[in-house]
């Protein structure tokens, strides 16, 4: 596969929360607004790119018996860096995302990419893979966040866009609403793939 394929596969074919159905915990928990989705997505993308790069660079050095421990140390370091930087320069976002930032360490997308891809490919490929999967994850969270924000509070990126007198479905902002939104988007994606396959 070429670099381009590695990058674009993360945007549709293997887009994490919908196609791989991985990383659902942050996906469901933080996507109450579009901005939160972008923030969480970019934080994860940053960690994913750097963990992929380092895992790939060190892949010949790390003995297979301790590979998971090594990957986790690498991932955890970048997560702490993200956490400190966010706390220092994007405090409002940090307060919203809170506990979900440290939990990126155990996000199975990141360990999954390190184990399944970065540890078997060269650094350039690993970077392309990390960037693609990360962007796919960010876009997915943004879409989910926007759907829930529009229905749940009538706003999009904080601007009220529904008609006056619109009664928000606060249900959409609660955890069950996250599952409903995820299910609907997943269904539409399957429908589109189905049409494409028939043609």
């Amino acid at each position, binding site marked *: 596969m070429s670099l381009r394929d590695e990058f674009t596969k993360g945007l549709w074919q293997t887009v994490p929360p919908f196609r791989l159905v991985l990383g659902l915990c942050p996906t469901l928990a933080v996507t109450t607004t579009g901005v939160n989705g972008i923030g969480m997505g970019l934080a994860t993308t940053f960690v994913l790119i750097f963990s992929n790069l380092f895992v790939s660079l060190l892949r010949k050095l*790390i003995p297979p018996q301790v590979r998971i421990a090594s990957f986790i*140390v690498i991932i955890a370091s970048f997560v702490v*860096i993200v956490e400190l930087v966010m706390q220092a320069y994007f405090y409002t976002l940090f307060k919203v995302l809170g506990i979900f930032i440290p939990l990126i360490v155990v996000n199975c997308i990141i360990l999954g990419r390190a184990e399944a891809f970065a540890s078997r490919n060269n650094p350039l490929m690993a970077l392309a893979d990390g960037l693609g999967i990360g962007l796919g994850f960010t876009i997915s969270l943004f879409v989910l966040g926007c759907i829930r924000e529009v229905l749940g509070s009538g706003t999009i990126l904080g601007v009220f866009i529904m008609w006056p007198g619109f009664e928000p479905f606060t249900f959409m902002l609660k955890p069950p609403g996250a599952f409903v939104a995820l299910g609907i988007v997943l269904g539409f994606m399957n429908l589109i793939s189905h049409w494409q396959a028939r043609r």
Partner: protein
Amino acid sequence: MRDIIRMVVVLTSIAAASGIALSAVYRITREPIEYQSIKFVKEPAVKKVLTGYDNDPIADRKKIVVGTDERGRPLEVTVFPAKRGGEVFAVAIEGRGKGYHGTIGVMVGIGKDGGVLDIGITSHSETPGVGSKVTEPSFTDQFRGLKGTVAVDALSGATYSSRGVVMAVEQAAGLVERFREELF
């Protein structure tokens, strides 16, 4: 055996490298993080209790050492001075009192004459709907202009919470009295 040595060496070096990198990032971000927590947690309360200043009380904040804790380390309190024409005329200082559930933090604005300008509750974990009413203006406004003994009407059903706020205000006023020379 060689395998085991290799495992230990590789994992140890990875962990050491990440430790070094993290301590560097921590050093760089320590100051901004402290600033952010002051800006987002303390600043709204400071702005509420001080008025009529022409400086930035947050930027001009200073720490005073008020004593030592049980291990002998210095206990510091941050004070936010309000200046007009370069002259400090009031300070905001956070006092703590024991409420019904845990500690109540109160930001207190105190004028040069020792009188209370206004108070704002910064943190509490009182019962919602009962003790939490101490954060409402109908209760906090009573403290305006008080001097010397703090006597206010307690909220009915929330005696401990009311007393906690009074304790915090008295503590803050006491600190200002003790460090009057340093502050004004």
